């Protein structure tokens, strides 16, 4: 059973303000509690299948020129740098 503290902790890690308890904590808890049904699926011995793609089939790793200056589409930039908030107060 997921607790209120679990949800508040993860929200902080995901950089989300949980300012509406009913909308976020209560509903998220109901949603995650529904996932407990997975416990009765009996899939413990099942292998997880992954899609594999050979490196040779990937697109060549090379620079493709773009005809516009993408940085100019940002709201906050200076020269060739993204403008970000300071890392600590």
């Amino acid at each position, binding site marked *: 059973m*997921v607790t209120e503290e*679990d*949800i508040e902790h*993860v*929200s902080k*890690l*995901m*950089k*989300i*303000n*949980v*300012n*509406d308890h009913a*909308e*976020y904590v209560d*509903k*998220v808890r*109901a*949603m*995650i509690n*529904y*996932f407990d*049904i*997975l*416990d*009765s*699926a009996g*899939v*413990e011995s*099942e*292998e*997880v*299948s992954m*899609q594999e*793609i050979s490196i040779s*089939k*990937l*697109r060549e790793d090379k620079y493709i020129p*773009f005809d*516009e200056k*993408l940085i100019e*589409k*940002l*709201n*906050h930039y200076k020269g060739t740098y*993204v*403008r*970000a*908030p*300071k*890392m*600590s*107060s």
Partner: protein
Amino acid sequence: MNLKISALEFVQQVQDGNISAEDFVAKTMEQIHSVDEKLHAFLSVNENAINQARLIDKKIKSGDKVGACFGMPISIKDNMCIKNEKTTCASKMLENFISPYDATVITKLKQQDAIFIGKTNMDEFAMGLSTEFSAFGPSRNPWNPEYVPGGSSGGSAVSVSAFECVASLGSDTGGSVRNPASFCSVVGYKPTYGLISRYGLISYANSIEQIGPITRTVKDVAFMLNIIAGIDPNDNTTIDNKNEDYLSGIDSGIEGKKIGIITDMMTDGVDPSVLSATKDAISKLEGLGAICEEISIEMVKYSVAAYYTITATEAGSNLARYDNLRYGYDFSVEGYEFNSYISKAREKFGPEVTRRMIIGGFVPSAGHAGKYFLKALKVKSKLTKELDEAFKKFDLLVAPTVPILPFKIGEKINDPVSLFLVDINTVTANLTGKPAISIPYSISNGLPIGIQLFADSNQDKLLLQAAYALEQTVKLPEVPL
């Protein structure tokens, strides 16, 4: 001017000179201005569409080569990029985002002289199944505006159903094309995973989502697939379909085909009118020469939980880019510390997106991944094996598209688990990568019911043949606009 024609009829009539692209597009714009205030299918409309259609008419008159769409007005779900146009994902976070490039599907449609009549409403970031989670207000069902049109591609389905375009593109992560198609009585197609490029589709859950057409007829789906399907160097998950012609042989019929009836999608929770329509459709399929037998797919019961666990995990990762530095809205960084700035900026996400981000952080986290994410992946694996086994015995599978009728706006919005279960018949195709289609089948108390057919991976052509055969048995009333 009759707007109630199919894509193929539009092409034929323009080619024959019976109608001009300009007149048709102008009439379509009139229709949008007449009905969209009530239905809210569109988030933005291309006010230059009539001029674009006029240019195509000029090409036709001067004998220049014209693309297969001949100026057909198509609507596009607002999570696909059209260069220099807004792509909002129905989110305040991207309210003013202008796409710097075209999605591959857009490039292909442009090459065939399609006209993008507008961008359609959706649940924010495609997270929802009723279009109620759009940050710009819900779309409404043309069959009864008090009811939801389904989602997340609700605006696309409404625009086709209400004659505001000829065809539309939606995206289907857990039923987001088929569900609104069923609720609005139009055709919705989720192709084999990889058949259509996702380049330029704003990511939600990359491992299972696909772009798919929403149209008035099954033949129109085939027409659209002929244009947009195929390998793309910009999307490594695309598959080479060898330029398959999905229209040729679409009337081949289903004589002798074996069809499995998925009993786990027809349980007690299914609305009696939906169950009755499905049984009737199965009788029609048998009447067309198919051999129908029941089959149980045990993992269906767990598919919704697996689906939401996997999609929330991928969404948590995909939405991390919305930090308001790379993507976002105009909100000054001055006076904020890094983490608090991002948290503050993310308050622009709506409640459903916020909830799924929290879940997406929780279910794959250390200490919880074994209970949730890993088990979800194992359910996905086992479900895929079950379907692979089923397709050794059957050519196709059948079930209702949605277990219930369209519901009233606001009826389920505060009960997330009840909303989850509306997806129970559609997520299987996404988790397994198989193609599936919703075909309009009947109307109960003025509300549409769709029937869903599934095929094995890369059997899209066979699936369309079967859907076409079933469609020919159906005669439905006109939408009461």
